[in-house]
C-alpha cells in the first residue's frame, strides 16, 4: 500500500494523473477506479439518458457501463481518449438495453422522416447572448431538457454526444456507428430545431416568470 501511495502521489514523468490512474487500475488496483471515472460520471449518465430517456434505466446502464469498463480496463489503449472510450461503452450498453426492452418501437414514427430534407428555421427574432445565470434556475434547465427530449432519437443522440459530451464529429460517428456525413446532417437539424423550440418556448411564456428584461429574449 505504501508503494501505491508513492506512485499515485508522484505520477511518472510526462504522465497525467489520469494516465497514472489508468495504469494503476490496469495493474489491479481496482480501488482507484472510482477516482478515475469520477470526472466523467455525469457525462456517462447523460449519454445513457439521451438514449433511454428514463432516469432509473440511465443510472442502471451508467453503472453497468462503469463495471464493464473496469472489467475491460486492460483492453484500453492510449490511442483513444479515456472519456470517449467510456462513452462508447455506455452508448453500447444503452443501445443494447433499448433493444432488449424494445422501447425503440414507441418512438419510431418521427425517425422515418427524411433527414436529407432541408430544415428551415422558423423564428427570426433577435437573440442575444444567454446569461450563464439562466442555468442556475431549475425551471430553465428543465425546459431545456424537455426541448432536448422532444427531439427525434437520432437527432438527440448526435446532439448529446457532440454538444454535451464534447466528442468530435468523427468520434460521434464511430460511437453511433453512422457516417460522418450523417452526423453532420443530424447535428445541423438538431441545433436548428432546438433553437426554434427554445425561441417558441420563450414567446409561449415558459420564461415569462423569469426576471428578464422586458421586450427582449431571455438571453
Amino acid at each position, binding site marked *: 500500500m505504501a508503494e501505491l501511495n508513492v506512485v499515485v502521489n508522484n505520477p511518472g514523468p510526462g504522465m497525467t494523473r489520469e494516465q497514472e490512474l489508468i495504469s494503476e487500475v490496469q495493474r489491479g488496483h481496482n480501488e482507484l477506479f*472510482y477516482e478515475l471515472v469520477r470526472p466523467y460520471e455525469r457525462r456517462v449518465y447523460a449519454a445513457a439518458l439521451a438514449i433511454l430517456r428514463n*432516469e432509473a434505466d440511465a443510472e442502471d446502464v451508467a453503472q453497468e457501463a462503469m463495471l464493464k469498463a473496469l472489467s475491460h480496463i486492460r483492453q484500453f489503449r492510449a490511442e483513444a481518449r479515456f472519456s470517449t472510450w467510456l462513452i462508447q461503452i455506455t452508448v453500447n450498453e444503452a443501445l443494447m438495453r433499448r433493444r432488449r426492452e424494445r422501447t425503440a418501437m414507441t418512438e419510431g414514427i418521427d425517425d422515418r422522416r427524411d433527414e436529407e430534407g432541408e430544415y428551415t428555421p422558423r423564428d427570426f427574432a433577435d437573440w442575444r447572448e444567454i446569461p450563464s445565470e439562466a442555468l442556475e434556475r431549475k425551471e430553465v434547465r428543465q425546459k431545456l431538457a424537455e426541448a432536448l427530449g422532444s427531439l427525434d432519437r437520432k437527432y438527440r443522440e448526435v446532439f448529446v454526444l457532440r454538444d454535451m459530451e464534447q466528442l468530435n464529429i468523427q468520434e460521434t460517428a464511430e460511437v453511433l456507428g453512422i457516417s460522418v456525413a450523417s452526423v453532420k446532417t443530424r447535428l445541423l437539424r438538431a441545433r436548428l430545431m432546438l433553437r426554434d423550440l427554445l425561441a417558441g418556448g420563450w414567446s409561449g411564456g415558459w420564461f415569462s416568470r423569469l426576471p428578464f428584461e422586458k421586450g427582449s429574449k431571455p438571453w
Partner: protein
Amino acid sequence: MVANCEQVWREISNYLEGDVDAGLRAAMDDHFRTCQRCRSVIEGTRNVIRLYGDERMIEVPAGFGGRLKKRLSHEAHDRGSRWSTWSTWLVPLAALALFAGGLRWANSLTVEHPLQSEHAQPGHDIPPDMPVIVSAGARDFHVAGCPFIHDKDKERTLTAREAIREGYVPCVRCMRKYLETASSGVPPQPEANADADLDEDDHRGGGQ
C-alpha cells in the same frame, strides 16, 4: 462568392464547427453583416450550443455518485474475493497435482512395466515363491526351460510374487494349469503350433 440564406442555413452548423473553406466562410460572414434573419439564426444556434454544453445542464439524480462508488467498491471487493476463493482451492489442487505427477514420474524411473496382453490373466494358486523367468520387453513370466522365453540375454529370475507385482502375467503355455483354474470367461487361445507343441509335450510327458 455570394451566399444566400438557404446556403447559410445549410452550412451554419459546419460554419460553427470551423468546417467550411475560406471562400465560403468569407461569403457567409458577408451575408451575416447584411441579413438580420440569418444573424438571428446563427446567434440562436450559438446560444443553443453554449447552453447545452454547460456542465450544469447534466443533472444526475441525488445520490448518483454515492451509489456508483458503492457498486464499484463491491465489484472491486468481489474480484478480490473471487481470486481469494480461487486461490484457496487452486494452491492445494496444484500441490496435489504436482505430488501425483511426481509419483508417476518416480514410479516410471524404477520399474519399466511390460505391455499387458489382451489375454492377460492374473493366474490362480500360483505359489508366490515359485521361481519364474522374465525378460525385458516381454510381458509374460515363465517357468524355467519354457521354450517361449524370448530375448534370453535379458532374462531375470524372480519369484512369482515379484513378477506379478512388476506387472508380468503368467505365460499361457507353460503356466497353463494356473490359468485354466482361474479363468471364468473365455480362456486364452494358444497358437495352434504352440498347442501342438504343448500337446506333444504332454503326450511325451504322459508317455514317460
